[in-house]
């Protein structure tokens, strides 16, 4: 079988359409989320709805870019093993524009979580950074720049695949056709697109590093305007990589057999996704540990309240240890055996564990600070509500999850689901 015939077969087995039932379900999720948000934001406790939206935006936005980054990393490092997952990783990135829209929505509710929006309460020495017009400007500008880079990257990655798919199988739809206008010779296109992406990928990775830091500092850290930590940006970045890889692990387990990718995805490659979850969980734990230790040991009043609330308080302290178990102990011991990483069903348990854990981690970084701001506004003697998982958290999470899944599946149904034109995409043991 020639390469082209082989790729034609792969293309046919991976062409994929979201079934009506699932699509309906996801749309229902989005509807529930919308209703939940509207009811919540116009109700008596609007901050709960805004808090849930913020948590989910930083969480799913993190997955979108964290997921996309693997495609970028594989491109930069010329890695072979990740190639079957390249398009899936780009599909996760399809949520990034929607996350951008959600951030735009969040601007309108910013006064519900940022104490510094109030002129009387902002810490004066920080007012130059923590002021709303500048906040909007820097976030919009950087997000748009990174989004444009991501779009160019994905476009260059898609173009030769769609072009080849068109040639092999007459692959065509309104979305895909836009990427192949003026398509020339296959080899020349492949070379040209790779060359362009060699530059774009590096810029995108750097832009994403800055954007992750900005999101972490601006949207999460500044809720508690007094606290600061230089590590915070990288912590968010590492968490995004964990969730991105966990999603790829879930997709890998399904796509392996369901999309007929056996051989392209194999035990060793699936194993790699598990190993990376393991590695990133350790990296994340290392980062959190380094922060906690330095702050605990230094014991200076600007820094410790943030940790006291999250480690020692009756309301939130317990969650710290739950997260330590879910993000460190469980994946550390769970993913260490080779068998677990090899088996889709077994590694899936740990992927889901870390996905849930990182969601809780976002909640854990955001909600206590908002509650503290609320208590501060209510005056002396006000208590923190603590962990109160509520109907808004539930419905809005479902809503954003629905939008996330819809965007990922929509993207995958419009383009070749594997990089068929990529010479590094091959069947193991079949040269």
């Amino acid at each position, binding site marked *: 079988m020639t390469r082209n015939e082989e790729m034609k077969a792969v293309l046919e087995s991976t062409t994929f359409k979201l079934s009506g039932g699932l699509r309906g379900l996801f749309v229902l999720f989005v509807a529930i989320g919308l209703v939940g948000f509207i009811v919540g934001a116009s109700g008596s406790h609007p901050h709960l709805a805004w808090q849930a939206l913020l948590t989910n935006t930083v969480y799913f936005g993190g997955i979108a870019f964290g997921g996309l980054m693997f495609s970028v990393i594989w491109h930069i*490092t010329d890695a*072979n093993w990740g190639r079957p997952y390249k398009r899936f990783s780009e599909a996760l990135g399809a949520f990034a524009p929607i996350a951008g829209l959600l951030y735009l929505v969040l601007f309108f509710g910013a006064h519900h979580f940022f104490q510094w929006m109030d002129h009387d309460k902002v*810490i004066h*020495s*920080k007012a130059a*950074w923590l002021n709303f017009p500048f906040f909007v400007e820097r976030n919009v500008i950087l997000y748009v720049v990174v989004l444009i880079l991501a779009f160019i990257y994905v476009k260059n990655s898609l173009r030769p695949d769609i072009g080849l798919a068109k040639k092999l199988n007459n692959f065509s739809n309104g979305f895909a056709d836009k990427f192949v206008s003026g398509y020339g010779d296959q080899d020349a296109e492949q070379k040209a697109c790779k060359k362009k992406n060699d530059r774009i990928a590096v810029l995108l990775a*750097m832009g994403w*590093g800055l954007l992750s*830091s900005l999101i972490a*500092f601006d949207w999460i850290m500044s809720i508690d305007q007094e606290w*600061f*930590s*230089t*590590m*915070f*940006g*990288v912590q968010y970045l590492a968490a995004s990589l964990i969730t991105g890889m966990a999603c790829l692990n879930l997709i890998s387990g399904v796509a392996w057999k369901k999309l007929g990718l056996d051989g392209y995805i194999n035990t060793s490659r699936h194993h790699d996704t598990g190993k990376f979850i393991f590695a990133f969980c350790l990296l994340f734990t*290392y*980062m959190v540990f*380094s*922060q906690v*230790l*330095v*702050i605990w*040991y*230094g*014991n*200076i009043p*600007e820094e410790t309240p943030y940790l006291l609330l999250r480690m020692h308080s009756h309301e939130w302290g317990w969650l710290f240890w739950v997260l330590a178990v879910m993000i460190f102990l469980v994946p550390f011991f769970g993913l260490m055996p080779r068998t677990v990483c090899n088996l889709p069903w077994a590694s899936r348990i740990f992927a889901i564990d870390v996905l849930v854990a990182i969601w809780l981690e976002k909640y854990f970084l955001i909600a206590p600070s908002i509650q503290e701001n609320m208590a501060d506004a209510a005056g002396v003697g006000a208590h923190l509500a603590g962990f109160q998982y509520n109907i808004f958290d539930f419905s809005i999470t479902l809503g954003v999850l629905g939008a996330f899944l819809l965007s990922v599946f929509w993207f995958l149904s419009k383009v070749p689901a594997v990089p068929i034109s990529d*010479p*590094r995409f*091959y069947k*193991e043991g079949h*040269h």
Partner: protein
Amino acid sequence: MSNVTYASINDHILHSLKPPGKSWFASMAVILTMLGMGIFAFGYQIRHGLEGSGINNPIGWGVYITNFVFWVGIAHAGTLISAVLFLVRAPFRTSIYRAAEAMTVFAVMTAGLFPLIHIGRVWNFYFLIPYPNQRLLWVNFKSPLLWDVFAVNTYMSVSILFFLVGLVPDFAVIRDESKGLKRIFYGIVSLGFRGTNHEWVHYMRAYLLFAAIATPLVFSVHSIVSWDFAMSSIPGWHTTIFPPYFVAGAIFSGCAMVLTLMIPLRAIFPGFKDLMPMKDLEAMAKMILFTGFVVTYAYSIEFFIAYYSGARYERALFWFRPFGELKVFFFLMVFCNCVAPLPLWMKSIRTNIPALWVISIFINIGMWMERYNIVVTSLAHDFDPYAWGTYTFEWVEVWITIGSFGWFFMWFFIFVKIMPSMAVAELKEALVPPMRSAHHE
């Protein structure tokens, strides 16, 4: 690697082990002079005490601690290249890792001297080690300085063992190719390795496990070194990003030192050019670009958070670094670490040997400046203006620093003559690639 065969690998590498020539002895003479200067200065310091150095109150840490952090940093690249890149199956490590590991071992040996030099009464060095004693005196387990003793010793033990484990099959090659006393010596150090299937199976398993054990050490050692600073509450030291920033900086400087050493090695020994293709050096250049970017990010975030924190001491210190009396060191650091590597973005520079070598030298200087900058500026300008001070290093410190380079290069020069400076077995492995052949380019 079309012109490379099993036999040519043996020939080229065994050729590098031939008895040294004139240039080797000439270099060694310079190196031993440097070492002699260091020993003399250290002797002077033992006789006269630390007053010969520029260390004062409040700046109790000066060039010695700078050198300590610098050499520990250099030591990082070896284990990163040999263990981490082994685990992630990066093929470009093969030709480089042996010399990088040797560099690691010698750099830790150099680094380990500096705490001893720094303590002044060097004959009391064993106070650093906790041991049961009649006086019931214990070291301070809460001090990061003590954690450092453990971290550096662990790192040194593991990197030496890992280095020697990697050498076993290569020593066997030399044994098979030599006669007489030499054969007996290499026979002993190769532990009777005969290259049977059975031995290889166990050997590869051991090597993999060793790599996995060594990997966390790459992170732990420099994290703990960074905590020597970050655990205090001194402005400019107490910051949470220090551990990953130090690790990235260490890899940055280590990779630069690998290039500084490998490029001459590649030029001196015939045949090494075939074994160490340009793309391997280019890959190192890319590692430098990446870690250089991380370091630049960390510098920027430090400044940003110093501003954002609103804490006036932080702000004052981060004003003092670029605009105070020690600004020269700051701008040297920024130039060497953030600006000098930028030409590596261009492929023509990455594949230009002299340019690569010059840039690697700049980075070595820059990373020394970084540590100097961290150590000295924060101590010079802490909370109370009454306690501010300044620091200039004295000849004793300069000579000891020169001596440390002499010490390091002495070991490295001995290494290239008695051990194969490239991994013979692994280079051969790459000729009939088990996995990497999956695509042809």
